[in-house]
């Protein structure tokens, strides 16, 4: 069952020996900050937003990794860089052991069908003039897969069945406006599944949907992952969703992963002070469970101006003097596979 979250199952997904589906090492991506006319004339130094600033993680087939964090922490840029929609400044991205960091767009093209993305807003991501059939057929035409017309038609029906829009005949001729939000997101998922991808990047896949249909879409992603051949990288700001559906969670702060590990461990036994604070402010469903949120003070993080030392130290409730100078790396913390980037961890 999708909601089942036994530790064994999760550990099993992470303990295989083969090369990970996706491996990201020390990834850095930045955007130039516009200097404006005055800045350009006075030759002010070019400044950069360090959106992704040394991110490393791996994702196995059959696994769902949730990248969580607040807006501006770099989680979406990380995803865009992995898909090579943004060019990395440094670092490495490997898909199935093959380095794709510097591949030209032409050589990347055949790999694109193996890496698909689902966007937040199914109202925006589907072309309103395309029938469901066309929306799912288009990627096959672009990538030249699916064979002839009847072959493609068969794959459209199969993709719709996989996203549980059955019977497919009922949906193929519809336009997006004739579908509910949840159905639209399923069509968007079908349009990426039709290419048989190995990696699915889902950027806030349910945040625009009504609460009552969110679980359906998340369980669908969970089942697709559970088959074992697909790895899902889910980007979300919603820790509760990550806690329920991801195998592992990576928490980002100012362009870095500050904690990463099995979902249950990160939620129940957080090691990094930022993760602890973030978890404390998530509203609980039970009105009797009104815990004291640990609200962080100080300026919200600004990626154009990353503090020296530990990037979290200006807002950290337990910061020490050395945190101003030491930029901590991810180190093993707690149980196996659990790591955190804090000088207080592992001692």
């Amino acid at each position, binding site marked *: 069952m999708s909601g089942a979250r036994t530790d064994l199952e999760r550990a099993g997904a992470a303990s295989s020996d083969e090369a990970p589906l996706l491996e990201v090492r020390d990834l850095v991506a930045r955007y130039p900050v516009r200097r404006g006319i005055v800045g350009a004339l006075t030759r002010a130094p070019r400044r950069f937003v360090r959106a992704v600033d040394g991110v490393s993680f791996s994702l196995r087939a059959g696994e769902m990794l949730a990248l969580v964090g607040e807006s501006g922490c770099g989680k979406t840029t990380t995803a865009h860089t992995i898909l090579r929609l943004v060019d990395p400044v440094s670092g490495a991205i490997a898909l199935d052991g093959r380095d794709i960091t510097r591949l030209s767009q032409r050589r990347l093209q055949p790999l694109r069908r193996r890496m698909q993305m689902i966007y937040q807003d199914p109202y925006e991501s589907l072309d309103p003039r395309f029938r469901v059939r066309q929306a799912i057929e288009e990627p096959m035409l672009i990538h030249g897969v699916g064979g002839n017309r009847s072959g493609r038609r068969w794959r459209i029906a199969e993709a719709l069945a996989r996203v549980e829009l059955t019977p497919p005949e009922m949906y193929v001729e519809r336009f997006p406006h004739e579908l509910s939000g949840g159905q639209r997101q399923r069509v968007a998922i079908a349009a990426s599944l039709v290419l048989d991808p190995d990696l699915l990047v889902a950027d806030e896949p349910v945040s625009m949907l009504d609460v009552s*249909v969110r679980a359906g879409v998340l369980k669908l992603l969970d089942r697709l992952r559970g088959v074992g051949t697909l790895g899902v990288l889910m980007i979300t700001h919603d*820790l*509760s969703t990550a806690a329920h559906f991801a195998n592992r969670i990576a928490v980002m702060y100012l362009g870095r992963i500050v904690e990463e590990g099995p979902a249950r461990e990160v939620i129940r036994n957080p090691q990094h002070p930022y993760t602890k604070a973030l978890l404390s402010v998530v509203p609980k469903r039970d009105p009797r469970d009104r815990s004291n949120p640990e609200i962080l003070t100080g300026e919200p993080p600004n990626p154009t101006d990353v503090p020296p030392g530990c990037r979290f130290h200006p807002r950290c409730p337990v910061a020490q003097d050395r945190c101003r100078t030491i930029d901590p790396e991810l180190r093993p913390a707690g149980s196996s596979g659990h790591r955190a980037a804090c000088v207080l961890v592992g001692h």
Partner: protein
Amino acid sequence: MSLLEVRDLHVWFDLSDGGQLHAVQGLSFDVDTGERIGLVGESGCGKTTTVLAILGLLPPSASVAGDVRFEGESILSGGEETVQSRRWKDIAMVFQGAMNALNPVKTVEAQIIEPMELHGTAEGAAARKIAGELLEMVGIPAVAGSRYPHEFSGGMRQRAALAMALACGPKVLLADEPTTALDVMVQAQILQVLTGLARDLGLALVLVTHDLPVVAQVCERAAVMYAGEIVEVGAMEELFHAPCHPYTRLLFAATPDLYGEEDVASIPGAPPRLDREIVGCPFRERCDRAFDRCGRERPGLLPLGDGRAAACHLNDEPVDAGFRSR
């Protein structure tokens, strides 16, 4: 008599095809001084329309029936004339995108003073003093009032909008998804401010949101809305621990909890169309406990004692079928 009483409120919107959309279908609820009540439901359930109707802010394509009473006095009966004197002075509102609705060329302080001067509650130095106090109250240093909205972060702008809503000392604050576009950390700050204001100023808070955990953490009571009506109202704890309407139960079950172990369920189907008459219970097609009567008869909001009410036939069926037996 409650501070704010909404009685049998109906709202219809004229559709371009000549039809009508019955967005709010006979809503009644009370809000007491200092009380924090949630209006919860999914998109299209009529929660925003309800609060806009209370303030007389609906577009001309809407027609409204029913009564809204503030301190016993009907405020909608006289049209714009009677509601205008109440708006902002007695009942104020914060919108979801309020932080993006501030005037970019005016200082934050000037924008808080504006409604005071408009309603004649304060002016000059007195108004500036109040503006400073309000900013402090929402956690912004008073001196920051001389800054412009673009110099504020999103959370600060939303709090400035909150200070603006409080400018004329209202007794009721309607907050429509006040934290929806914000990060959890900023959300926590705003919710803390809202809770504090209700406690310290005796402000009645009507929190409109789709987010059950937010209501669970802030409100004492909540009304769950579905298809333009209230399907259950009661103390937040009761709604969570002993729901009397299947929709309330399923909505909680569809909401993942950080530490919850149980399966997160989705509710199959979609809400009924509101541009045609609803026969029977509006929730029956998505309900896991519907029976023959639900198709024939629309359940009314039945009082169940302790300020509790629910619109579900299960509550007056024989004990073995009812909710109370479970």
